[in-house]
């Protein structure tokens, strides 16, 4: 009985097509950076390298969610709704990595 309200969004930019291609090239570049770093520092294992990969991953995620999934143009509540719960995931992952290391120490 309720109608499927087709609600207007915060207007996406007029040059959406251009922006999509721009995003594509950014993602492409970031992946290339990933691989380049990987090859350059192949024998070099450190937390910094891993941190860099994770940061690059998060940046890529930002572009995919923001532009491709249109999040950047939605009202601000939606991003909160989706992103705030991810804190729990990060908490879980951090704790589990600590716990994994501890397991390694016990064995």
């Amino acid at each position, binding site marked *: 009985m309720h109608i499927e309200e087709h609600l207007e969004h915060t207007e996406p930019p007029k040059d959406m*097509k251009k922006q999509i291609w721009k995003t594509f090239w950014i993602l492409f570049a970031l992946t290339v950076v990933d691989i380049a770093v990987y090859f350059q520092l192949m024998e070099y294992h450190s937390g910094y390298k891993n941190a860099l990969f994770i940061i690059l991953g998060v940046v890529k995620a930002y572009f995919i969610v923001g532009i491709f999934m249109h999040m950047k143009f939605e009202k601000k509540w939606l991003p909160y709704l989706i992103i705030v719960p991810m804190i729990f995931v990060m908490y879980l992952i951090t704790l589990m990595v600590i716990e994994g290391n501890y397991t390694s120490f016990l064995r």
Partner: protein
Amino acid sequence: MSETTTLTNVKTGTWGGGKSPFSISYGKLMMWIFLLSDAFTFSSLLVAYGFIRHSYASNLVTPWPSPDHVFNHFPFLHGVHLPLMFVSLMTFILIFSSVTMVLAVEAGHRMAKKEVGMYMFLTILGGIGFLSCQAWEWTQFITGTHEGRMLADGSIFHGANLQMNQYGPTPFGDLFFIVTGFHGFHVLSGVVINIIIYLNVLGGTYEKRGHYEMVEKVGLYWHFVDLVWVFVFTFYYLI
């Protein structure tokens, strides 16, 4: 029915009721919320991966293998050491199919039926391409290399199965199969849904309905699959 139509134009507070506080339809909101919960499913698998991998941190007998010694093959280039090249190719395919998807959505906003159809078709091609690459990758992983691994009783084990693998500890193979498998399953279902929507587009269902929101919804799902791959790529292959 009537009150919503008459009042949506009235300036009311965002959370005042009578309309969506996010200005999106319930269908898209549902898709977002579903994706959020699906993200937690993937997270649980990645958590398992993080836990087990780190529980090998000080294990010198069977250390966790370095990905460049495992994923270093490329089709038709036998014997060439090309670590991660193939996975990067897969990543590009997936990102590209994401681009065509978002172009389809954009064309949908303009009600350009033909363009939507074309881009949907490209997206489906991209999805199938990715799945084929993954199939090759799995085959490579399962058959293994010529060297294999010497077992305690002197025999040599090639490749991988769920109980054992030549590359490193058992959970390495198990996690590879479950993480990429679960992602592949998502891609597969995405392709199937995309095909259905594509047929609907060609049939003019959305033209009749007056909007291409359905394309947006599957678009969200498709981008999510891409998003997950970004993290699988980072955690399983790079780190």
